[in-house]
């Protein structure tokens, strides 16, 4: 009997130990979900996490995970009387349209995502018919994806490439001797040509003559001839509209002795560019995407909560992955949460009604719906946008430009250049 009891105790002990170990392991795998009594609210990210476009997808997922973890650690969010933990479900479409459709359906149907964030371009266009039919709130970083029929497609953070006008405005004001510019960019209609048209319009408005527009494909392995060709036109300013190849172009500009101004849409991984050229060369480069430890982000009007804390958390976990989108998808998520709270609902129509019915707070301040003039629907949120310059090897905001004011005054110039490059306008 004694021995039986002992055996039984031992079994009980082993059972309990195994159960406890299992619980601890599970809890450590899902630290913010395991013991939460909150409901789970899933948002989707249908983005490229591998391939050429991964730098404009994956860092955004890392950023959203930081935001979601912070919200969940603080007890979740209250929407319509329910408290929710945020769950970020993601799908890597590798910038492939078929995979994008598959990913969108998976996120919407299996994960029951209430909102799906995407990068933009052909992958969004592929998902749109299904997404709009099912009324899935979808976000893009490229408002040129918006069509008169895309009622539930919104661009609430990046309005690529409209904000580039602020960089040109600032340059023209700060460096009045810049009279000519050469544009180099990818020749795709989604990113490159949209940017080229915007820069051309901004240069025209600023009184800067465009002496060369060099459109290159995605198969370039050597940028020496492209840069030689550009520099032969003696531009006061070289403009990298939206190039996936900023680093090799900057490298060639450095080696071929270019000493004029450089303006670019993005300057992702600029520390690598400095390593391949020099800090002195990269200093003074104008672009549009700040680091989030920038003191200017504490100014009134900026709505992103604790930018420096976010920057530190991101760089601690992902020290080499910060890119233009690292804060953009989080900003979209935060904007959606605010509107869901205001609506008291997570359903698409309610959130959209709150978005359109209430004054929106854009991430850098301001915020008006715009877009019917170009794409047929006012579904792009346009606000202030920072002009960033590399100073002493660090990205630093110089001022916030007013995109809406520029568009109000110069929309026709932009339309003219878009049409010249064969881009869609209403």
């Amino acid at each position, binding site marked *: 009997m004694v021995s039986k009891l002992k055996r039984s105790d031992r079994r009980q002990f082993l059972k309990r130990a195994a159960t406890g170990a299992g619980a601890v392991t599970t809890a450590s795998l899902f630290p913010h979900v395991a013991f939460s009594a909150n409901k789970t609210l899933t948002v989707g990210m249908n983005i490229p*996490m*591998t*391939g*050429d476009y*991964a*730098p404009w997808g*994956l*860092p955004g997922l890392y950023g959203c995970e930081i935001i979601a973890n912070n919200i969940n650690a603080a007890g979740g969010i209250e929407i319509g009387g329910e408290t929710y933990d945020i769950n970020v479900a993601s799908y890597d479409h590798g910038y492939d349209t078929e995979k994008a459709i598959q990913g969108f359906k998976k996120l919407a149907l299996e994960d029951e995502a209430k909102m799906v964030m995407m990068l933009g371009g052909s992958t969004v266009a592929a998902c749109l018919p299904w997404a709009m039919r099912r009324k899935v709130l979808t976000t893009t970083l490229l408002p040129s994806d918006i069509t008169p029929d895309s009622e539930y497609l919104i661009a609430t953070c990046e309005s690529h490439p409209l904000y580039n006008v602020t960089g040109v405005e600032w340059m023209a004001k700060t460096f009045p001797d810049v009279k000519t510019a050469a544009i180099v960019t990818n*020749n795709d209609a989604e990113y490159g040509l949209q940017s080229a048209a915007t820069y051309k319009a901004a240069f025209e408005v600023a009184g800067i003559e465009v002496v060369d527009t*060099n*459109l*290159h*494909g995605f*198969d*370039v*392995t*050597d940028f*020496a*001839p*492209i840069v*030689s*060709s550009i520099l*032969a036109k003696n531009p006061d300013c070289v403009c990298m509209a939206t190039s996936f*190849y900023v*680093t*090799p172009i900057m*490298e060639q500009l450095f*080696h*071929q*002795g270019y000493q004029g101004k450089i303006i670019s849409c993005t300057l*992702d*991984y600029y520390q*690598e560019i400095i*390593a*391949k050229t020099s800090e002195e060369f990269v200093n003074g480069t104008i672009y549009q995407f700040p680091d989030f430890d920038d003191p200017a982000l504490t100014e009134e009007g900026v709505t992103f909560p604790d930018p420096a804390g976010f920057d530190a958390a991101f760089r601690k976990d992902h020290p*080499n*992955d910060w*890119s233009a989108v690292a804060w953009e998808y989080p900003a979209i998520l935060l904007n959606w949460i605010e509107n869901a709270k205001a609506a008291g609902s997570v359903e698409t129509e309610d959130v959209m009604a709150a978005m359109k019915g209430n004054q929106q707070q854009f991430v850098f301040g301001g915020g008006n719906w715009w877009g019917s003039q170009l794409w047929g629907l006012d579904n792009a949120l346009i606000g202030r946008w920072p002009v960033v310059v590399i100073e002493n090897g660090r990205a630093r905001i110089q001022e916030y430009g007013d995109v809406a004011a520029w568009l109000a005054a110069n929309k026709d110039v932009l339309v003219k250049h878009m049409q010249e490059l064969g881009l869609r306008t209403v």
Partner: protein
Amino acid sequence: MELLIQSIVNGFIQSGFYALAAVGLVLIFGVMGVVNFAHGELVMVGAYTVWLLHAQYGVPFLPTILIAILLVTAIGALMEQFLFRPMRGDPLGGLICSIGVLFILQVVATVVGGDGPSKQVPPPYEGTLVLWDFLRVPYQRLFAIGVAIAALGLLWYFLTRTRLGWALRAVSQDREAASLQGINSNRISMIAICVGAAMAGLAGALMAPLTNINPHMGHNVIITAFIVTIVGGVGSLSGAVIASVLYALFHTFVTTYFNGTVATISGLLIMVLVLIIRPTGIMGHRVSE
């Protein structure tokens, strides 16, 4: 005039990379009869090795180049031993195997390097040579073209002045006749793929500080290598080198004076024209049945 001279120099430097990548492809096809679709990925592995060891772990650049060559050579040897040799006499089988290797190497590179942006390698040789106040050539590019010329010179010496090189050429001309002369064609095939892979590894290692490194970079390399190989004459090493110089100069000039897209399309058109007008290429010979 300044732009013209700069373009000629740009073109010659680029031709070194094209030639290194193409001669390996030609050698493997000539000796083994296999179109190695994974050749661009061998170049990519060479570049990744430099990124990993030099840029990430601080191993000096020159030893890293040697390690890249050895690693890619070893991959080539494994491909020959376990894939191409069992498929001997079945060109389609070899081609399909090489496509499989292509995907495997891309996935391995993604696992090793992680997702995200293209990898960058800071140039070990900084600075720029400036001649006559206008001609500018980065020292890194000078180093690369110097090493490429030396490697191609060594290959030429090996093929034309050594018994092994003669044997290799003999097998590429007629495998059966070479076997009748007592040449071990399996051994020669192994040497051919090792030499070809070593050239690819060297090309990747030299390109690493000058280009965006990513798992898919081999795609552009293989297209260029095919153009050069076909224009030069399939199976002709000297044709591949001459075509590399001509194609690099052509591509550079069209990119400089028109644009890169026109250059790429024109290059492919030239390949098609060569196939129609002179299928043997610049230096290839018609083989009688």
